[in-house]
């Protein structure tokens, strides 16, 4: 079942479906499909000692499915009083009708129960397609899941069950992904450190302790290394740490007044960054120990934020001031085929590729005063773009989630900047952070 499709409608179609037509362009980029399946997720019970962990379990299962943004979860208040615990609970002739008719109106049902076995929590998890005529044909799968007899164990089996459901529906899960970011919560501006958290804002951890302005995190494709910029040594320099223990790795910086905006190549072998050469920040590439350095751009303009196409590995987005104010550009890794992707209006910053390489998220002041950034998404094929945020503060640092349909971004609403996620159509906005100021999120797959 194809649950994700991306379509760009013409102006006429956009008007016909009543979509909001944004900006001067008569375009609409649709990344989130409109007719999302409805799934009912019945609260489960546990026998014996397992019951005490079921609140954690039920909440985790619900959130894991809901946070994808690509399912509609039927509200629990609409469910029948008696919920099935195993397939044999469905009796003809009623069968699934109480679930498929209003008010539930579900296409799918997740149900089951837990018990204690060998001092572990055991989940029997079933997933039914309610459009089928019999119990046998309706069962998409029925699996057993084991975890520690604890809240963490309950969370683990819930996530695994949710992951199987999402896999069946062709929906990528965000479970296990990590968001790296810079936060000033420990020292106050300008002191910042690199932190990480789970995709839903839980499990926030401080990774660096330089007591300096440390920001601009980047994460390798395998999730094992993260790079960043820090003033810890005086002038801005890049450092690389391991993701698991945050141990510093060797990286030899070029002799330069500023080295910043690191980015790993998709193969993990090289690192791109900006370094000042002859008074201008220029794009450079080197091995991840800093060896074999070479210059990619050679222009009397500021160039920062190289972002390599994750699909091709051979072209990159970057921000350049060569046409005047900062704009979004693309070129090949060897410096050829440079092209400006934005119109030259306003200031552009923080490009991010969608995982499939088809779309770009970035922030732009187009249509606003300098500094009033909003999040935009562009279809790289035809360069049509849509504006996702408006009238909600200063929005920057969009970064595409590994599922291809979410974005994480920073938003200054009032005096502080916090991190939020949203679907790539601008809906389903959720705040992830609350302490201090938090900026420059990078959404990475977990450590493989």
């Amino acid at each position: 079942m194809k649950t994700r499709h991306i379509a760009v409608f013409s102006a006429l179609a956009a008007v016909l479906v009543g979509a909001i037509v944004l900006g001067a362009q008569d375009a609409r980029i649709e990344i989130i499909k409109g007719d999302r399946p409805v799934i009912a997720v019945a609260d489960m019970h546990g026998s014996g000692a397992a019951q005490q962990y079921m609140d954690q379990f039920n909440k985790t299962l619900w959130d894991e499915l809901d946070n994808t943004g690509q399912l509609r979860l039927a509200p629990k208040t609409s469910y029948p009083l008696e919920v099935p615990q195993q397939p044999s609970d469905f009796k003809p002739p009623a069968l699934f009708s109480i679930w498929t008719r209003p008010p539930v109106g579900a296409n799918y049902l997740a149900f089951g129960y837990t018990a204690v076995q060998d001092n572990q929590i055991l989940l029997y998890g079933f997933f039914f397609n309610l459009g089928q005529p019999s119990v046998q044909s309706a069962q998409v799968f029925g699996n057993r899941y084991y975890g520690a007899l604890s809240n963490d164990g309950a969370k683990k089996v819930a996530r695994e069950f949710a992951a199987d459901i999402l896999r069946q529906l062709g929906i990528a899960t965000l479970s296990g992904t990590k968001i790296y970011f810079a936060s000033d919560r420990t020292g106050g501006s300008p002191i910042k450190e690199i932190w990480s958290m789970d995709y839903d804002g839980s499990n926030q951890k401080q990774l660096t302790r330089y007591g300096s302005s440390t920001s601009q995190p980047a994460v390798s494709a395998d999730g094992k290394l993260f790079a960043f910029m820090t003033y810890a040594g005086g002038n801005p320099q890049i450092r690389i740490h391991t993701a698991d223990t945050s141990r510093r790795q060797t990286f030899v910086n070029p002799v330069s007044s500023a080295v910043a905006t690191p980015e790993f190549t998709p193969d993990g072998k090289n690192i791109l960054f900006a370094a000042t050469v002859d008074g201008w920040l220029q794009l450079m590439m080197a091995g991840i120990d800093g060896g074999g350095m070479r210059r990619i751009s050679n222009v009397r303009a500021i160039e920062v934020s190289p972002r390599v196409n994750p699909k091709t590995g051979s072209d990159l987005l970057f921000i350049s001031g060569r046409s005047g104010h900062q704009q979004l550009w693309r070129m090949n890794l060897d410096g050829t085929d440079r092209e400006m992707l934005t119109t030259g209006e306003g200031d552009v910053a923080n490009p991010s590729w969608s995982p499939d390489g088809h779309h770009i998220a970035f922030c732009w002041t187009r249509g606003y005063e300098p500094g009033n950034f909003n999040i935009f998404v562009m279809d790289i094929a035809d360069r049509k773009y849509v504006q996702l945020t408006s009238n909600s503060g200063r929005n920057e640092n969009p970064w595409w989630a590994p599922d291809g349909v979410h974005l994480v971004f920073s938003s200054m609403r009032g005096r502080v900047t916090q991190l939020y996620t949203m679907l790539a159509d601008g809906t389903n906005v959720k705040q992830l952070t609350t302490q201090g100021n938090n900026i420059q999120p990078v959404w990475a797959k977990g450590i493989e």
Partner: protein
Amino acid sequence: MNIRTLSAAVFAATLLLAAAGCKKKVAASAPPPPPPKVEEPPPPPPKPQPPRIDTFAAEPATLERGQSSTLRWTVANATNMSIDQGVGAIQANGTRQVSPGNSTTYTLTASGSGGMDTRSVTVTVNAPPPPPPPKPKPTVTISSADMLSREAQDIYFDYDMSDLRADAVRSAMANAELLKRIFAQDPNFSVLIEGHCDERGSAEYNLGLGDRRATSLKDYYVQQGLPANRIRTISYGKERPQCTDANEACYQRNRRDHMSAGQ
């Protein structure tokens, strides 16, 4: 001879002529009546003497502000005497100390029944000489870093620009002279140029922009003959703003180069 004597003589002569003529004539005529007695006029009143200022002088006539001069005068035949400029009524002979703030002409007026007399004297007041130049600061009591932080001027830029404006060139010129003095007196001193930006650009781009701003000032100093190896640059982008208000006045304060002592 007074009138009465003269009249008696005239009368005697007339009498002599009449006796000689009578020899021929036997019968003599009656004598004329005496002339009317002449009334003697009262003597005229004595004429009054006019007032007279004999002396009116200021000693000294030229002085410096804050000093005083003595007015000295002698006046005769006057009943009312005064000096203007606030001195007021005076006696016929006297002195008075005055301390005018500026050059002043004093006029003495003396009047009486015989008339009036005036006389003026000018006291010239010179501005005091300018104070002596401050004593040169002994170099041991002020460090080069203090000199830099006291005298160096911040250099301001336009939005998203890194070239030196006309006002920036004037400030940079003064800074270059300052650095020449500091470098000359302190051979180990180096300077750090910090480039800063306002909050509106992105953090990443502003790092480059602050770097540009620091570099363009360094380039200017090197053109002015300062040694490049004693001038370091650093960009703080928008990390260290002077103010955080969302208005042009604050933005301008943050779009700057600032100099501090290098390590």
